[in-house]
């Protein structure tokens, strides 16, 4: 296992203690995980690592939330799990099978679904075609899933012939989420699925995510709506500087004063809960 990189300045000692604690937690809990990543070191440019030995696991049927400051590497982590960012070191396994640096489409076949944070629709395709892409590998399922998705987001049904490029930010987000729901995966990776949605639809997304999860799909979601995210997830990770700073159950993290100070803030705290 790679050591904590000297990347961080300040509270180094505290951090490295924290990191080794996290390492142990990871080692202890990761057995039997459907998806696990060990010591991921990955980055976009040669020589610049964004992930510094990141660990993560997700047990079957678990809903895992990832939160963290901007630029912490949350999206990079999801992308590297999904083979879209080159992993320099470490490994990713799906049900015990090594899938490190595998092509994204084979991972889809293997049962992973992914909603990226940005650029998550096909602008020149219509809504319907966007959704069709969601079940590209199983076109037969299209009608049934399509009905399901349009039930969830009726707007998508009304505008099925509108090109996604002309949709509003929130509508795009619906399409992106809808596309992921089309494919019926075993593990679903969501990168800020609620961003840009109206409050009621945000809630809806969380509820649906929960429902999907309850139906047996393991979900790993990155969220900035930490309040909601930690409410619904079984377990959460706080990512900082490319590695896990804290992990624990959603409730534990939400109440952890360090997490609140570093990351959650107190905005709206009085009203919520």
């Amino acid at each position, binding site marked *: 296992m790679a050591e904590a990189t000297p990347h961080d300045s300040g509270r180094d000692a505290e951090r490295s203690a924290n990191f080794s604690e996290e390492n142990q937690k990871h080692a202890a809990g990761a057995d039997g995980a459907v998806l696990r990543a060990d010591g991921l070191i990955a980055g976009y440019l040669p020589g610049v690592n964004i992930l510094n030995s990141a660990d993560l696991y997700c047990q079957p049927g678990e809903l895992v939330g990832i939160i963290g400051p901007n630029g912490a590497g949350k999206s990079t982590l999801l992308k590297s799990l999904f083979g879209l960012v080159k992993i320099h070191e470490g490994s990713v396994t799906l049900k015990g099978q090594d899938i490190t640096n595998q092509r994204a489409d084979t991972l889809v076949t293997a049962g992973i679904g992914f909603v990226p944070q940005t650029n998550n629709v*096909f602008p020149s*395709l219509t809504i319907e*075609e966007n959704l069709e*892409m969601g079940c*590209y590998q199983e076109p037969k399922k299209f009608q049934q899933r399509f009905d399901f998705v349009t039930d969830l987001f009726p707007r998508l049904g009304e505008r099925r012939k509108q090109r996604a490029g002309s949709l509003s930010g929130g509508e795009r987000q619906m399409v992106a989420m809808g596309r992921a729901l089309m494919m019926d995966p075993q593990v679903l990776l969501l990168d800020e699925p609620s961003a840009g949605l109206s409050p009621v639809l945000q809630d809806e997304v969380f509820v649906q995510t929960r429902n999907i999860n309850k139906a047996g799909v393991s979900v790993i979601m990155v969220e900035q709506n930490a309040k909601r995210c930690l409410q619904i997830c079984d377990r959460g990770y706080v990512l900082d500087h490319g590695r896990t700073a804290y992990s624990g159950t959603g409730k534990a993290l939400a109440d952890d004063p360090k997490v609140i100070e570093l990351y959650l803030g107190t905005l709206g705290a009085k009203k919520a809960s």
Partner: protein
Amino acid sequence: MRRTTHVLVTAVLALMVLLLPATAASATEDPSPAPASPSASTTAPTQNTPPQGAFIGVTLVDSSTDDPIPGVTLVVTDADKTEIGEGVTDTDGRAFISIPGQGEYTVELEEDTLPDGIELNGSTTRTVNALLDGGNFAQFQIGVAEQASVPFSERFITALVGGIKFGLIIGLAALGLSLIFGTTKLTNFSHGELITFGAIATYVMNRAFGLPVILAVVAAVVVSAGFGWLQDKFLWKPLRNKGIGIIAMMIVSIGFGLFLRFVFQFGFGGSRRSLSQYVTQPRKDYGFFSLADKEAGIIIVAIVVLTVTCVGLMKTRLGKAMRAVSDNPALSASSGLRVDGVIRSVWVLGTALTGLSGALLAINSQVNFQMGFKLLLLVFAAVTLGGLGTIWGALLGSMIIGILYEVGPLFGIPSSIKEVGALVVLILILLVRPQGILGRPERIG
């Protein structure tokens, strides 16, 4: 089919022969009805032979009937107005008058020696600047009828048909280009060479392997498809994997084009060559327009292939997958599309279509190592005009470009630069619709 035109031509000629003397006779009601040039025929030598040394020659032919006019007297004077000699046309309508050397001479035709009913179109004198040691000829036009100009509508239709044919040929290549662009965003400057490839493949199949042209075309399309496969496998895919930017790829395509073009020249030589069949075919008349069989064949093949491809792309998932890959390859992969597979099939399909375009062009005209390169700009113009990356746009653009290319000269565009018309229209249309005819504007914000 050649026979039919022959029959037509002879029929027309026969009609003219029948009609002309009658009108001529009625027109020239001579007061002194001397018997039809008996004097002329008696004085006419049976056969003049060209003299040694320099001479001035005249050939008198009635161009309305193609009949030579014998017995006409011609007088040659030199610059000082001294008479040099005189000659009388023979039964072939020819007369030769020796001259002492080079210089300016004047030839005068004695009008009264002309047979009745025959009139000169111009004056009776000609100045000849004799440069040649042998014959220096002058001409007295006879019976050159004012050419009844072909009606505009007829010329328009002919040009239109030519334009459609050309547009369809471009269209195949444009569709190929558009597919490749639409999927990979690559502005492929080596696309012209893919056209040439198809043509050369046809030629090789036809001439070297002795296949009949039709089979050679089929084989060429197959070979082209294979060429597309190889290209993607060994060039474009490794480039994509390396994460090379789109501009760099464009420059690679310029280099690749250069490379291919001169490899073609190396192997094929610099000259034009033709296939073994269908080289010359006269046109058949179809009422409003006429077409040679091969042209009809080209039009039909192109239309069928274009329709099948377009409808196929609309109906099958490949069409959508292509657009998806073009929009966002990473997201396509995340949706479970085999991005490389889609791009590979697009290269295969695009190159095959382009190869067919080259093959048809080879039938329509000839095979040359630069033929595709010379066409490239028009293909680009077509694709752009219709809206980059849109399939129907490529076709529409091609038809517009093709038609303008051929019809333009009717509207005053000098035919030596007939591209200009098409290109100007391209620019004008882009001014009105910056996203191309079928392209859609993008949303801001």
